[in-house]
């Protein structure tokens, strides 16, 4: 309880500091006419209402009607868009997680599969997603799929990777002697997997799911950009970006809601972890953001 209170406090303090920084920078710029105090050097970002609206104007815009004479306030519109995006992200997340888990299991069972596929699993994440997004959208359109399908596919493309990597890491986490023990019982490969490796991999799974959750949101938003579907957050950001000069605070508000969606999804996974994994079984700290080769247990020597 004490630790979580401390976290909350430091979080609130940091957010407050960021707001102060934003408003402070703006105030300095306004006072000096856009230069560093005491010099004639321009500040990197202009501080006028267009470039940097007041924090309260951004928050205020969330509660104002989105269009003149419109019914719904901006917040409602953005939350609706966020939910639409989240649906695709969630589907992509689930599909991607299963694919990732399956790949992890495949790799731990088959050295040939690992050697053949692992380089491509790693390389897949070096492909800039937005580059493939338009192609996926066209494919999906040709096959007459519902319009959330290509978005979910792009989400899954980003989401599967952390799960694949951490599943493999977790499946390889049992000590060499535990594996020897199973062998001395003449356990079948399936028994080793179900009774030793998969339970041992679970603590590694949730940190990966958190990374995947946030990746799936990125995938969904980025996927929506070229798709041209009007319902999602990506599209909202695109349209508020084009009307930036007349209503800058709406773009900032939509960026804020996008951030909230990411936090909400990752937070949700954390809650599920709390409910399902006993504290003693959780990794003390999420493993570092990981890539690449996962060491195979060293061969048994004297």
């Amino acid at each position, binding site marked *: 309880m004490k630790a979580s209170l401390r976290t909350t406090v430091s979080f609130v303090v940091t957010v407050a500091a960021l707001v102060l920084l934003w408003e402070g920078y703006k105030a300095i710029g306004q006072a000096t006419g856009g230069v560093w105090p005491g010099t004639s050097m321009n500040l990197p970002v202009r501080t006028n209402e267009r470039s940097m609206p007041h924090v309260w104007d951004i928050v205020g815009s969330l509660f104002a009607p989105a269009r003149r004479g419109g019914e719904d306030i901006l917040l409602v519109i953005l939350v609706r868009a966020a939910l639409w995006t989240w649906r695709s992200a969630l589907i992509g997340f689930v599909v991607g997680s299963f694919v990732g888990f399956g790949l992890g299991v495949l790799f731990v069972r088959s050295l040939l599969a690992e050697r053949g596929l692992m380089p491509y699993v790693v390389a897949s994440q070096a492909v800039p997603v937005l580059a493939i997004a338009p192609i996926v959208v066209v494919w999906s359109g040709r096959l007459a799929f519902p319009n959330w399908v290509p978005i979910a596919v792009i989400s899954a493309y980003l989401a599967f990777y952390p799960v694949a990597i951490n599943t493999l890491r977790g499946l390889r986490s049992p000590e060499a002697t535990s594996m020897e023990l199973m*062998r001395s019982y*003449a356990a079948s490969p399936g028994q080793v997997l179900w009774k030793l490796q998969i339970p*041992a991999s679970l603590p590694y799974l949730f940190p990966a799911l958190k990374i995947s959750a946030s990746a799936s949101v990125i995938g969904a938003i980025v996927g929506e950009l070229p798709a041209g579907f009007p319902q999602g957050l990506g599209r909202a950001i695109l349209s508020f970006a084009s009307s930036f000069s007349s209503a800058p605070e709406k773009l900032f508000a939509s960026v804020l809601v996008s951030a909230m969606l990411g936090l909400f999804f990752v937070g949700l996974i954390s809650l599920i972890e709390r409910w399902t994994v006993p504290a003693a079984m959780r990794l003390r700290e999420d493993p570092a953001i990981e890539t690449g080769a996962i060491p195979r247990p060293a061969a048994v020597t*004297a």
Partner: protein
Amino acid sequence: MTALDLRGVGMIFNEGAANEVTALENIDVVIEPGEFVSLIGPSGCGKSTLLRLVGDLLQPTSGEITVNGKPPARARLDRDYGMVFQSATLLDWRTVLDNVALPLEIMDIPRHQREETAREMLELVQLGGFADHHPYELSGGMQQRVAIARALSFRPSLLLMDEPFGALDEMTRERMQMELLAIWRETQTTVVFVTHSIPEAVFLSTRVVVMSPRPGRVSELIETDLAQPRVFETREEPGFYEMLTRLRESLRKVDES
């Protein structure tokens, strides 16, 4: 029938490669059923490797191993081995009882039967009251007792122990040695026991295999003819000290050669 028969056993790691290591060379040892044999020697003498060869965790590059008249792979499939390592290697997510029952579960023994057996085994290692605890709630010595109970749960004919008490403090260690001997007498299991400790080898064993390093060879076989059953006072007998000295001298010879 002999419990364990090693004939000309050799083990070369990375054979033919630049980092080739000869871990064992020309090992000949015969162990009769019911014996308690310790393997002792300086680090690098291949005693853990030898244990793993017997347990079919590694395959020798030369020579022949027979366990109860069978090749090791057959013996493993027949579940002839109970293994105990230096670390207890309990599964964190299982209770103590479920850990002990793990091998029985793998052997498809029905639930009520395996729980009954596991409870008996826990009584044997005096942990009857801890069945529903998780491993992390137990001390190091208690965890190691659970590992021994687990190894005994399916009544293997051969107990292979790789420095099982190596990580324990001296007092816990001496108590565990007494318990192990009691279990050995009761179950009549053949034990092969790898250790670093001279008093441990003398106190526990009927015979000690002294090994020399680089490459690992058997340098001497020593009978420890101390009276059975060994009791607390055995460690204070003059005969015990004579055996200690004998073994220590043998190991020094190994070290100097």
